[in-house]
């Protein structure tokens, strides 16, 4: 217990003393995860919309596949990408292994099923009258689709926050395809894993605090976006 509290004090000192290494690690985490979520969100929401509003062969199978993909472990994604991107792999010529781009690809793969499944659930629960009302009031189908997305925006925001929460904290994929290179691909989870293995708990705790603080911020923002947080009477 004493060790934990002294490590926590050291962790706070590290954070607030402006330790460059720590803040670079935090920076890498945010850069990679924000880029991944920005790239994944639009196509994922489009797919979720198509799955909700259009009937086509294989639709149910696709929904089942996305739901199944929710359970894919990050390390499996990392391993698959590692094989594909390694020098002998089919995508080896791209020289992406141990780069931030590879980490972004891994995080896109991890966040995509969450974004699709949660957005689809929101859209499926939405009212079809919203779409028909927009169309009958003169909206072009694309504009009507945007109107429907606006109507379910809280569900979509929840999907984005959940997906972001998953990828910013994942270690398996980032470790395997990023390589945990200091000042380049070392992010919060891979740094925590490394520092813990070295017995340097203060830095691990400091980074853990950042992750926890981030989780709190994400949840506060979600609650704020959702308004009163109660069912309308």
């Amino acid at each position, binding site marked *: 217990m004493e060790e934990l509290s002294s490590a926590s004090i050291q962790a706070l000192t590290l954070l607030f003393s402006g330790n460059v290494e720590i803040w670079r690690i935090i920076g890498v985490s945010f850069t990679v995860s924000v880029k991944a979520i920005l790239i994944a969100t639009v196509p994922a929401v489009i797919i979720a919309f198509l799955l909700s509003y259009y009937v086509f062969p294989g639709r149910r199978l696709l929904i089942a596949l996305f739901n199944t993909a929710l359970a894919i472990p990050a390390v499996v994604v990392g391993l698959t990408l590692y094989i594909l991107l390694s020098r002998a792999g089919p995508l080896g010529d791209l020289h992406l292994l141990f780069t931030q781009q590879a980490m972004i690809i891994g995080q896109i793969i991890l966040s995509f099923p969450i974004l699709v499944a949660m957005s689809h659930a929101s859209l499926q629960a939405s009212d079809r009258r919203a779409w*028909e009302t927009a*169309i009958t*009031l003169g909206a072009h189908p694309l504009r009507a689709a945007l109107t429907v997305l*606006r109507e379910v925006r809280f569900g979509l925001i929840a999907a984005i926050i959940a997906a972001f929460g998953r990828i910013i904290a994942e270690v398996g994929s980032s470790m395997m395809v990023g390589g945990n290179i200091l000042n380049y691909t070392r992010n919060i989870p891979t740094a925590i894993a490394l520092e813990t293995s070295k017995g340097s708990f203060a830095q691990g705790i400091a980074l853990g605090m950042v992750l926890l603080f981030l989780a709190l911020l994400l949840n506060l923002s979600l609650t704020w976006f959702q308004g009163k947080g109660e069912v309308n009477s």
Partner: protein
Amino acid sequence: MNRKDWHIKMNHIAFQHKERLILDDINLQIRHNDFILMTGQNGSGKSTLLRIIAGLLKPSMAQISSGHHKQSWPQARNMLRQRICYLHQQPYLFHGTVFDNIAYGLRRKKVPKQEIGHRVNLALQTFSLESLINRDCRELSGGEKQRVAIVRSWIIKPDIILLDEPFANMDKESRFKSYDLINQLQHNDIAVLLTSHDPQMGALNINQHLHLYQGKMVSKHL
């Protein structure tokens, strides 16, 4: 074509869902300033027919023409969506205020922002709903929602407004307020087709009465 000369003719409308024939060989014509009441029991196909007329549902078969031109379904669908407004039995109001909802169609028509404000205010005054302008739509009563939805359709000046059971679950006072509002649509050069269980609509200026029975138009009389 002049708005007053415009009419729509829909012949041989059929709609089948899986094995069930929901609409069977319906013929219908709607002209300028028509006020049509369509009655029929639950499941007789009234809502399905309205959604086809509004261009929201593709019929299994139909010949649709406006003026002298027969149109393919994609052409007809676009024309129907531009000229006809459909109101659900329980109208859907978007999240936001009454102003936002009434302005929605005007924004889609790219009406300048200042003119939108002016026209929304005028519309609400015309129908004595100005007190609702900044109200959140989720706080409105059923009758108020219905009237706001009618004004939202009226403001974009469609040729036809389709009302699906507009008086269902309404108390007497709301019903009479809605009668007034719907009668005003006709004075504004808008044809109205409304469905109801109840053929007694004495307070409305109906000039045509259609009756659907098990997907067929069984009687037509003035």
